[in-house]
Structures are given as C-alpha cells and as structure tokens.
C-alpha cells in the first residue's frame, strides 16, 4: 500500500526512510486498532444476544427508567404548546357597565386609542360576544334558552408590544379602571404568566426526577457490567498476562455498556411512541369536544435520537464506572 510512497524517500536519506517506515507501522497499528474496535463492538453485542433473557431484562429496566421522565417531558412539551397558543401580548378586556350609553363607550374607545401605550382597541358588542360565546364554548343550546343577553360590552385593548412589560400594563389597567363606565379590566397575561411559572416548576421537577432515574440507569448498567467482569475474570487475567493494556481489557465492557444503553433507549422510544399512539385517539376526541385544535404531540425525530444517544452515553458511563472500579482489582498474582 505505502511502499511506492516510501521508495522515493529512501533515495534522499536513510533517516527519512526510517521515519516513513514507522509512519507505515503507525498507520497499520491504527488500522488494527480501528478493526479491533469494530470487532469488539460486534462481539460484545453478540455476547449480549447470546444471553437474551438477561439482556432483555437489563434493556427493559433501562427503558422503563427512561420512559418515566421522557413521558413527563412529552407532557410538559404539550402543555407548553397549549400555553403558546395564547398570544402573550398582554391584551386587556375592559368590561363596560351595561347601563353606559353608546356615545360614552365610543368616547372611551377614542380616548384609549389616543394613549401612546395602546396599539388597537376593538369593540365587542353584547350580541357579538354572545354569538362568539355560542360558537366557541360548547354551551350553545343553553344560551338559546336565555331571555336576555347577559353579556356586557367589551373593549379589547391591545397594548403596544414594546410597552407590554408588566409595570406599564398594570399602570394602564389602573388608569382604565378609573373610568366611570368601566366595571372591570382583566389582563390575559396574568394566567399565561401563571401557567408559565407552573411549567417552569414542573420542568424542574421533571429534571430532578430524570436525574435520579438516570442515576438509576447508571447503577443498573454498572452492576450488570460488574457481573460481566466477574464472569470473565479468567480471560482478563490471561489478557493481562500476555500484555493486554488496560484499554484493551476495558474495551469490550465499555461496548457492552454502550449496547445496554442504546438498546434501552431504543426500547424506551418504542414504548413511548406506542403509549402516545394509544393516548392520541382519546385526547383528540377530548380536544374536539372542547372545540380545540390541540393534538397530542409525540417525540419528534430529533428528541427520539437524543433519547437513544443519551441512553447510550449513560450506559457507557455506567460501564466506565464499573470498569474503573473493578478491573484494577483483577491483577495476575
């Protein structure tokens, strides 16, 4: 392979020839090292598959430990999706006293619009509001039986986006409340904000739970690898006696850990998809009943891949812990 390259160098100086020879040797070594990695990877997988029951048990334990936080993560993601459906613009609903005259309402509307912090004002008359309520709330038939329209006139006030910080909005809300014909002012932002805080809290809880379960996976894989190391004690001794480096001895166990993790990750992704598919139907129906466009969103491709790779990484780390702790104790005596 490399002889033609080495030949011209020989003519120039013998020193360089030596260098190129050692380079060739290094390339050969690297190739052999690479091939050994491939062989070890395949062999450790085959070794796992040769004891299917034990391997499947480990994969399942890893998968279950991963499915729990992954499910919560998906739930959170969906809750965030619901929250994001509400525009976070700090819109205010100004409820007008029902006795107020139309001219007074029009006057208020104009005054509000002239304020620098207000972008738009939309007037919703009681009949409009009723029609919308009938359409969206699902109580349509009940409303038909009402004698009179119970809804007030509402001014929908949209603040300028750049002024939509909480302080300005609160001040604006206070000012509007002072108007004589105004009964109440509510800011949409409040419940969006609350939802966001709840989601942040839930996110942290999920994170803590995930951390604990990942630690569990780490220990499960570590323990499995520890048993594997014990089972191959003789082989490790012989390998060390005939000059195997620690890296060489470590390698098959690290690959085994990687396979445990990856297998568990794939299984977790499958279980999660199956579970979500199972839930998607009823949730869709439920959303339909609430006239919502909401649909259950499962793990997308990227998240699934991250889950599987993350699981592989955790498995590898577990194996690394076990190997670091136990291989050193096995020395030929």
């Amino acid at each position, binding site marked *: 392979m490399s002889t033609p390259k080495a030949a011209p160098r020989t003519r120039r100086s013998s020193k360089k020839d030596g260098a190129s020879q050692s380079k060739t040797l290094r390339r050969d070594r690297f190739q052999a090292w690479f091939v050994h990695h491939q062989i070890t990877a395949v062999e450790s997988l085959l070794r796992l598959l040769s004891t299917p029951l034990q391997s499947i048990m480990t994969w399942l334990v890893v998968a279950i430990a991963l499915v729990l936080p992954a499910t919560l993560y998906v739930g959170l993601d969906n809750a965030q999706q619901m929250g994001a459906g509400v525009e976070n613009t700090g819109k205010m609903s100004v409820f007008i006293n029902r006795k107020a005259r139309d001219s007074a309402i029009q006057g208020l509307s104009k005054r509000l619009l002239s304020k620098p912090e207000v972008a738009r004002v939309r007037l919703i008359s009681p009949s409009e509001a009723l029609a919308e309520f009938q359409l969206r709330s699902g109580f349509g038939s009940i409303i038909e039986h009402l004698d009179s329209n119970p809804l007030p006139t509402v001014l929908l006030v949209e603040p300028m986006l750049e002024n939509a910080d909480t302080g300005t909005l609160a001040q604006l809300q206070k000012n509007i409340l002072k108007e004589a014909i105004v009964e109440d002012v509510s800011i949409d932002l409040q419940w969006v904000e609350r939802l966001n805080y709840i989601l942040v809290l839930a996110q942290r809880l999920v994170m803590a739970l995930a951390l604990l379960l990942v630690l569990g996976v780490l220990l499960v894989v570590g323990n499995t690898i520890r048993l594997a190391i014990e089972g191959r004690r003789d082989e490790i001794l*012989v390998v060390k006696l005939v*000059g195997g480096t620690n890296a060489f001895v470590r390698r098959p166990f690290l690959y085994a850990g990687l396979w445990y993790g990856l297998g568990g990750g794939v299984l977790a992704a499958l279980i999660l998809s199956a579970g979500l598919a199972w839930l998607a139907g009823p949730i869709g129906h439920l959303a339909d009943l609430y006239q919502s466009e909401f649909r259950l969103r499962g793990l997308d491709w990227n998240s699934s891949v991250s889950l599987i790779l993350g699981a592989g990484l955790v498995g590898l780390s577990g194996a690394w812990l076990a190997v670091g702790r136990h291989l050193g104790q096995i020395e030929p005596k």
Partner: protein
Amino acid sequence: MIRFDNVSKRYETGYEALSRVSFDIARGEMVFLTGHSGAGKSTLLKLIMHMEKSSQGQVLVNAQNLNRLKASQVPYFRRNVGVVFQNHQLLFDRSVFDNVALPLQIAGNHHAEVARRVRAALAKVGLLGKEQSNPIMLSGGEQQRVGIARAVVNKPALLLADEPTGNLDPVLSAEIMDLFQQFNQVGVTVLIASHDLALVDRLQKRVLTLGEGRLIHDGQLETRLGNVDA
C-alpha cells in the same frame, strides 16, 4: 537478559519468599530453576514477569529495570516475555486458534499476519490440525502445547515456563522439553522452573537451585547434588 541483584521478596504477611538472590542469565541461554515447592521458584518467575515487585534489590530484564517500570509500560514489557503455565491458563470459551492469536491481537497485528503466525506457531508444536478445536477437547499434553504456541507466537526474546511438565507423563514431558530446546536453539532465552530433576539432569543445562528463598546452587546438576549432600 535477566539479572537479579540482591533481590529479596517479602510478602505483607512477613513471609520472605526470596532473600538476597543474585544471578545473571545471558541472552540465548537455557536455564532450569529447581527447588522444593515453596522454595521461591514461582515468586522468582513472577518477579521477572512483573506480577510481583521485589521488596529489595534490582531485577533487570532485557536491560530494563523493573523497579522503574511504570504501570502503563507493564503490558508492553510483557509482550516481550512468553510465559508457559503449569495449568496452561487457556480460555475454554474460544478455539485453539483464538487462544494462540490473543497476544497478536493484543499487540495490534493485522488480521492476515495474525492468521499466518498462529498457524506457524501451531505447526511448530504439532497442532496444525486442531486450530478450530476447543482446548477443552484436547489432552493435557496438547493443551500444554497450545500454551507454548501462545507463549512463542509473539516471538518473544525470553520464554519463561512454570512447571510446564508438572502434569504430564515422562514421554510427553520429554517432548515438551524438546520444544523448549528448539526455541532455545533459534536464540530465545529460556528459563524453566521444574522439580523434575531426572528430566533436568538429562538435558545438561545450567541449573539454579533455590532453597527456602536462597539461591543455594548455580551450575550443572552434578555439582548441585554434591552441594546438597555436603
């Protein structure tokens, strides 16, 4: 090739396995190590293999001072020392071929090179037809020869053997010794621990004799007998 300079080995229990042992083995020599069981033969071999460290004194192998060998250098050092064990230390979860190939794979040899050298080593010990057998199917003598093939497949400059004929009948023992002699004839330094004095006597080689951890004799066997009688 091997140099012991005032070497003592004391275990943590306080037991002194070797005390103030000094000798020199030149490159290309074939030397026997004898003594009663518990005389320190195994300990001496373990010191050479760097499975144990000397408590006192210097052990030099191939001009390398083993006291100064870093842990990370030990594997590379061992690749230059072939070892044959009394209990063979073969792996029964793989074929004869894979057992012999192990040192070559560890050293990172190319696939084709591994196959070539394993076959050469097996041919040398007369087991070419048994490559794919599991070593557990082989007789004791054959297993020992697999162990020898594994020890020499890397072409080490130094070959150690710990009671290589311990479990074998005299005919098989003689065959195994013949093999060691053949390796010695092509320049390999050979050190064999054995208590089979008849066999050792027949080969007329230099003999180191240990007694209670001390080197009590160094030379041909007749002299040793004289020393013991005296």
